[in-house]
């Protein structure tokens, strides 16, 4: 019995008395137990034509192997009801939403202050600045911005998480970007396509690039996504497409496989 009820607590670890509670920081660097990012999967894609731009994204949201929901849009109209600019974000969904809200208010404020809608080029540069402002705690998203430029041609700008951007003909982003992009290189920019019977070896003549009609582009987008769904588990459920023309933004939703 006596051995059980010896009075003093062990002196090595934290004891019963508050006096022994450590009041200083332990030695060495402290580890953060909290990682502020996650990947919500999904993929986006944008292609431009002569007088239109198409942005597309699947609607699945994941965390790990779980499907959070089958409908979480990644495409957003930016700048109010009569807007001609669409932003797509993929990566960490909460940052994507925060980024969209910031760009949206900025484009709206521009309109109120200047009495005219913001051009895509200006909006694209502003988006780059917003991303770079958070260079050391980035928005963990890959953004694609689409619209029509001042000549009415389809315009597409793609970004990295810290704001590097360029105007392109087509771009895939997100989980299945590495699956979709090579397909686009071949089918939109005619990479590795040559004119039949134009020569041997290096004398082969590359197939001339051309702007694709809207119907072809829509089919390419569909094919790109239905293929990505087959090979990537984070892509699926639904395909949302925004087609930006001078008449407005048309929205198309098509179901994808749920598996």
């Amino acid at each position, binding site marked *: 019995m006596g051995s059980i009820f010896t009075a003093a607590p062990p002196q090595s670890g934290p004891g019963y008395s508050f*006096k022994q509670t450590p009041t*200083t920081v332990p030695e060495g660097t402290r580890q*953060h137990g909290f990682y*502020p*990012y996650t990947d*919500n999967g999904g993929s986006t894609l944008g292609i431009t034509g002569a007088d239109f731009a198409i942005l597309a994204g699947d609607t699945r949201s994941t965390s790990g192997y*779980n499907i959070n929901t089958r409908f979480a849009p990644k495409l957003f109209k930016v700048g109010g009801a009569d807007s001609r600019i669409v932003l797509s974000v993929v990566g*960490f*969904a*909460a940052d994507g939403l925060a980024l969209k809200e910031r760009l949206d208010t900025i484009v709206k404020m521009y309109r109120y202050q200047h009495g005219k809608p913001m051009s895509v080029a200006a909006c694209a540069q502003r988006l780059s600045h917003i991303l770079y402002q958070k260079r050391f705690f980035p928005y963990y998203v890959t953004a694609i911005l689409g619209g029509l430029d001042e000549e009415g041609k389809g315009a597409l700008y793609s970004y990295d998480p810290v704001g590097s951007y360029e105007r392109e003909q087509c771009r895939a982003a997100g989980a299945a970007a590495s699956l979709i992009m090579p397909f686009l290189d071949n089918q939109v920019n005619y990479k590795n396509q040559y004119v039949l019977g134009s020569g041997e070896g290096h004398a082969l003549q590359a197939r001339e690039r051309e702007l694709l009609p809207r119907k072809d582009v829509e089919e390419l987008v569909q094919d790109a996504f239905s293929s990505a769904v087959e090979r990537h588990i984070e892509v699926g459920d639904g395909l949302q497409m925004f087609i930006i023309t001078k008449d407005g933004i048309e929205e198309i939703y098509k179901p994808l496989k749920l598996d």
Partner: protein
Amino acid sequence: MNHLPQAWGRPRDDVYGPYNNSYLQTSGPSQHTQSPIVTGTSVLAIKFKDGVVIAADNLASYGSLARFTDVKRLLRFNSRAVIGFGGDVSDMQYLTRLLSSLEINENYSVTSSTELAANNLHTYLHKVMYKRRSDFNPLWNQILIAGLDVADNPYLASVDLLGTTFSSPTLATGFGAHLAVPIMRRVCPDEEAAKELTQEQAVETVRECMKVLFYRDARSLDKYSIAVVTKEGVDLKHGEKLEKQSWAFAEGIRGYGTQVN
């Protein structure tokens, strides 16, 4: 006898020595939650044609210890929104305090005549959670918001400690995301199915899922809260017991039933 009232009922200095205040000073750096301590497990919710059902059990665990067995993890916000909390219980209690001050402000304000709808509440909680994660000081919860939106349609959405949000006709947090979601999605795969679902079917499905969770989630309890939100208001019941449990399945599982080796 000490005649100073502030000393009455306190340890006597001549017996125990003067009170040492030194540890009350926060001399160290301010600390942020790096991991949850006392935790609640799954919250389940499912939409039906004229409302939402939401449920959570009454256990708060301290690691593997079933520490508090009568904890209410469903919060009735107003007559059109109920909030279910998974994750850290102290952060839940902080949010409860925050939300009650929000509600008081709303009720005293002259400008708004209507109650906050579930989707407004979801936006508010999203902003709170995202701000806290951006400050590297997260509120360690996953939250479901169930109720009616501004247009009186059933509304169900989720927010977590990272500020991630999503909405779906069926949602579950924690273990429920693995075990209950597949069962609920069979009953209600999409929004169209939710519009056909009756209240009885929805409640029955949620109760069945709570049972499955009790069978397999070691940090769960057979006592739970369940709430139904419709236009008629909130029907929130605490301390419901799981009924018609059958452990017959355990016989066939090695290591689960009575057999050894």
